[in-house]
């Protein structure tokens, strides 16, 4: 029926406004990284039970990729932060 995501830019929005892109903890390997690293990055995904970080693209809103921390069992959402902020932090 609905679940609500609090977008840091747009406020509380129904999930219909978002497209989910999956694991937000992935880091794109360097072009020179090993085949295995690239294989893992592109193909290998965990299917975690419990807390997980996901990219939610606010397609119908601000068009930002949000990093949503969510429980896959209860769908409790702990946080939603802008993806650029998260990506810059990850690069540090």
């Amino acid at each position, binding site marked *: 029926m609905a679940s609500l995501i609090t977008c840091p830019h747009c406020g509380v929005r129904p999930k219909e406004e978002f497209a989910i*892109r999956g694991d937000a903890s992935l880091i794109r390997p360097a072009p020179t990284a090993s085949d295995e690293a*690239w294989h893992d990055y592109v193909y290998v995904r965990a299917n975690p039970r419990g807390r997980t970080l996901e990219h939610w693209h606010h397609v119908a809103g601000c068009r930002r990729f949000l990093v949503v921390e969510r429980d896959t069992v209860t769908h409790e959402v702990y946080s939603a932060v802008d993806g650029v902020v998260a990506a*810059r932090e990850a690069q540090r």
Partner: protein
Amino acid sequence: MTAYRLSSGGLADRSKALSFTFDGRPLRGFAGDTLASALLANDQLLVGRSFKYHRPRGIVSAGPSEPNALVTLGSGVRSDPNTKATVVELYAGLTAKSQNRWPSLGFDVGAVNGLLSPFLGAGFYYKTFMWPRQLWEKLYEPVIRRAAGLGRAVLERDPESYEKSWAFCDLLVVGGGPAGLMAALMAGRAGLRVILADEDFRLGGSLLSETETVDGASAPAFAERIVAELQSLENVTLLSRTTVFGWYDDNVFGAVERVQKHVAEPSAKLPTERVWRIAAKRALLATGAEERPLVFGGNDRPGVMMAGAIGTYAHRHGVSAGKSVAIFTSGSSGYRTARGLSAKGVTVSAIIDSRPEASDAAPDGVRVIRSGAIVDTKGRQRLSGIVVERSGFEELVACDALGMSGGWSPVVHLACQRGARPVWSDALKAFAAPDVGDTLRVVGAANGVYTLAGCLRDGAETATAMAAELGFNAAAAPLPVTETEADPSFAALWYVPGAKSKAFVDFQNDVHAKDLGLALREGFGHVEHAKRYTTSGMATDQGKLSNINAVGILAGMRGVSPAEVGTTTFRPFYTPVSFGALAGTARDSHATPTRKSPLHEWAKKHGATFVDSGLWFRSAWFPRAGEKTWRESVDREVLNVRANVGLCDVSTLGKIEVFGPDAAEFLNRLYCNAMLKLPVGKARYGLMLREDGFVFDDGTVSRLSDDHFFVTTTTAMAGAVMSHMDYCAQVLWPDLKVRFCSSSDQWAQMAIAGPKAREVLQQLVDEDISETAFPFLSARAMALRGGINARLFRISFSGELAFELAVPAGYGEAVADQIMEAGRAHNVCAYGVEALNVLRLEKGLLTHAEFDGRVTPDDAGLGRMFSAQKPDFIGKHLSARYGLTAADRMQLVGLKPVDKDKDIRAGAHLLKEGMKPSTLNDQGWVSSAGYSPVLGHHIALAFLKSGRERYGEKVVVWDKLRDHEVIAEVCDPVFVDPQNTKLKA
């Protein structure tokens, strides 16, 4: 005639008579009646036949838990099967029909099933009809479907309309009884945004059938006073006729409002039903409690009802279920109901109390049989008496209605819909709501508080506390004054021993106590297994009455507490919701949006035939007088473009403006070919890969200034490319200084293609667009004569001398008109996407028919575009994988039929000559095919194993689906003008 309308009393408006029909019989009721109360008032006790045994069944309840009184409302396309008569608001002209009976309700041939009942026990589906297997589909299933069942779905188009709406509130109160009304009142007075929803057409809940006074007034009058105050509060929304059917993530509730279910002639301006999505900061369940039926022999005979329902019909509707009503109870409530009936002048013949002793007071002169048990009932299609057993002696007690009261179960469905299970309470002898946190709390009878005073207090106090949590200050107010009530205690009684005939647990599914025993013996004792094995608790009522007794019986048989048996899983929907309501307005033209090109009206003017292309309407071809088939039109358009000039609408392409000092670097990483050094004023074909090395999309990149690029995508992938760019810019490379936005809708874009294209276009612009001044792959902003800011690109998707002209969308039609006028002397024609497709096919140019997600640049013959020198771009690393560079990959080739009259069809597979069709022998597939009017025969693009080495070889084009086979010669995929002499003319 035994059920009858009392001479006075009740809330039905006796000045407003309403006529309706049941199974064609004209009847009358009053405004304020439910269909069930009106049927009872007309002594129509028998309302349906049971699911399996076709036993006569009567009204049991006065609410949404009704298992028996399912009727089909209306007729023809407007008929509504499986409607509970107990919740249908009576209106003038209502027509209702009973279900699951043949030929008539009174005489049902299917009742013979009752004689077969030994074979129709629990699990009979799984045992009886297993073999021979081939008989299942042809014989067993149709017969069972006809014999067992509920109402019939209507196959015609639904003429009703529906809609959905969002609502937001601080507090949602579910249920408008004493607890809910008080809660809404306190919260409303405190200033919260409150929504109060109740499934009934009149707010008040149990107050409407309450005999006690509140604040000195009758209970219904008290309810009316509270409702009036709530109506006066701007911050309170009252939704009657609204069932809250689901509790979803983040405290969003689903509710369905029956806006016009209760009117004979619905207004076209309003929906029949409206689904609400209610986002509530807090919610209160004041959903009341359900009285439990008792499981005893013959308990399904029409006339056996819930005691509370008999009370409701008497007090709220002014209808007595019988002339002589007996009560079978395991607690105080039965006595309370008896006293109320007696006060109304209804004769109570006896109270049968399962308990050995009790302090409850029976009405004066009414006989009480303690330690009593009903073991059988008498009567044919209605009750005429009960067989009461006491200390081993049986006695026949005459009565024409029997009220059963087995205690109470809080209605906690909503609280259990998000995973938490109800919790067994020894004190309540019932499953209570689990603690689900602050956002949803349960009050009143749903919280196990069964006195009126308790409900009023619980609602008021909990709402006040919740208001405080949300920062509102609810002023203290004295609670309404009620009469003193006895504690409504009861003994749990899951099964009445000594049954002399079938003792039903689930009326709707014809499950009786022995079925549960059988399930247990056969290893299906787990509550979820027992449900599926016996069907107890399935179908439209989902066991609202029966589940608790089924759990109790299983617990008894297993020798454990009901806590250990537990309940089946609670899921939305609380009561059935029509598909129409869930779809809302999203049907027909509103099901998906339609996108229209700015040249839509222009194309229409030229007689275009349109084709759905995703959300878009695109012009497919432009038939002219005398052309009988689409092929004639398309062939003419293609030949005219090759010989003269044509105009095609390409506005649906995705268009993206990319800016910033790092824009070139950004695009360089997005595309597999080099973009960094694209000169200003130039366009370049670009190929985007996915990270796994396969082609994602193609398009053009034009550099309009140093830090401004204009990117086009294919129509289909416009959204996906934009999202991909968002991801790359935000997540992968957040430090690149690049900004972009879509300008897809700003530009009407048209391809002007053909040897005369320049001569036509030159008439519209002052600037020199000759081969030297504006050579192939030029791209720049340019004003049209008359001052329109346009963009002109020298790109071609046809192999001809061609331009793409973009003008602000609103001017698209006028500019296209102008081009057609300028081109008249050159025989210009409009051409559609079909001709566009043939033109590109003749040139071996590619679309997503080729880029199907399995194709690398090299497969497509575009290996030279893969810039291995670039340090990094999306898809670079994995493109070097062994599998993607293998020599025997399927490569793009052309195909021509050896026999020139034969056609080739897209989707066909390729085989070596003489080889059997098999996965192992598969040599490739045809991606696109069509008739080339230039060559005069069919041509195709295909992917063939090591195809580029196999030009000249003959292959079998095998299409088993359409039973089509043809021999074709493998050739270069460029069929027309392979030297590109026309392109750069």
